[in-house]
């Protein structure tokens, strides 16, 4: 990549902002995607995700891989601002063009901008990365979207984050292909790992895959060979079962739907008279003569040729 780092970073901004030219750029880049293996890392705040990612990048890089990282933190829905602090843990990464780290604010939840993580991963993929790692905080919708767009989802848990029942409530048990119980140096980590293993044994296997549990300390950096092996065997499983190819198709399908949805929505609200009709309907509702339901129905019928 070399001097292309600046260009790659610029391309990410263009895509993230949905600036003019973003769709053309992604269109040109798409044929060059499909090489990178994509790993999602999620879990509660403070679980050690960034510490783990940093180690994982180091290990993969030592093994000869080029690695891209996208670290997502939430935006404030009120101010749209965000404090992206994951880089603090990425100090010891090799300073060369084989490793590229980008912080992203989730934005999506506010301001109506779509969440562009998948597209940013595409750019890293097309830039020649062998592995792309996405870190998200496991508290909302974003990690579900990310889980749908990566190959292997790793859920990181710690004894402090409560027991496996808490993880289940947060919906984390369903999305993990692998579970890391981090901070093995802390009390209760081993018991938690066993609890998760028990729970996974009792749950129905998804896609004939029973998730592995790896107990480790990201801080000390032990047991990473085991983690790499677990990732590798999930990858083989996906390749052999054909799920890898299916995932690519499904990702393309949801991209197309999203793009069409966005386009239709925009066209609809730009139609002459729609907003005037909306204002009229609101007056009628205020006067007690209509409801949002019949108003929506009428507006749709009037402006989309009768379907409602």
């Amino acid at each position, binding site marked *: 990549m070399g001097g292309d*780092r*600046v260009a790659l970073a610029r391309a990410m*901004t263009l895509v993230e902002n949905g600036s003019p030219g973003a769709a053309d750029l992604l269109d040109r880049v798409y044929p060059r995607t499909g090489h990178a293996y994509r790993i999602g890392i999620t879990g509660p705040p403070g679980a050690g995700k960034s510490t783990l990612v940093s180690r994982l990048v180091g290990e993969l890089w030592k093994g000869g891989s080029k690695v891209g990282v996208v670290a997502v933190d939430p935006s404030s829905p009120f101010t749209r*601002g*965000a404090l*992206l602090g994951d*880089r603090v843990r990425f100090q010891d990464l090799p*300073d060369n063009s084989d490793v590229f780290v*980008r*912080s992203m604010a989730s934005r999506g939840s506010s301001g109506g901008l779509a969440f562009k993580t998948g597209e940013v991963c595409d750019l890293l993929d097309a830039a020649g990365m062998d592995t792309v790692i996405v870190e998200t905080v496991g508290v909302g919708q974003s990690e579900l979207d990310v889980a749908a767009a990566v190959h292997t989802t790793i859920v990181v848990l710690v004894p402090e984050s409560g027991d496996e029942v808490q993880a289940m409530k947060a919906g984390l048990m369903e999305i993990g292909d692998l579970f890391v119980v981090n901070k093995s140096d802390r009390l209760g980590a081993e018991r938690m790992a066993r609890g998760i293993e028990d729970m996974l044994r009792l749950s129905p296997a998804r896609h004939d895959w029973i998730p592995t549990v790896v107990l480790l300390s990201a801080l000390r950096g032990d047991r990473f060979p085991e983690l790499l092996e677990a990732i590798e065997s999930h990858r083989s499983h996906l390749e052999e079962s054909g799920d890898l190819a299916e995932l690519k198709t499904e990702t393309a399908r949801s991209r197309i739907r999203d793009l069409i949805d966005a386009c239709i929505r925009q066209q609809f609200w730009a139609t002459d008279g729609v907003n005037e009709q909306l204002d009229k309907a609101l007056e009628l509702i205020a006067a007690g003569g209509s409801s949002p339901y019949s108003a929506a129905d009428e507006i749709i019928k009037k402006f989309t040729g009768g379907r409602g």
Partner: protein
Amino acid sequence: MDNPIRVLVGKVGLDGHDRGVKVVASALRDAGMEVIYSGLHQTPENVVRAAIEEDVDVVAISILSGAHMTLFPRILELLNGKGRDDVLLCGGGIIPEKDREELMKLGVGNLFGPGTPTTEIVAYLEKEIAARRGK
């Protein structure tokens, strides 16, 4: 809607207090900016690498160790070397007036003394970036 201003906030040099930079970082976030906090003890190389990868509009650096006359020019030089002379480099610290003038001549933006109200920093960045984006 305007795209959010992206700012890299970090601390270069050996002193280990990060309260000041954290206060600034949260104020910028509360003003709607996307703040990439890179932590303490950054080298100019680290800072510039992060600035490039994060494609920031602003690099805001705190230097209290007195090495500002070497560190700020070094960051500028590295940014320019990558073709990113459009990035606004500004910062904070205890910097004598004479040094401040010299650094500004080199192309460094505002340097805020300790205790500057964060509203002043926010206003400066908003104005400066609006002007740059307007071009």
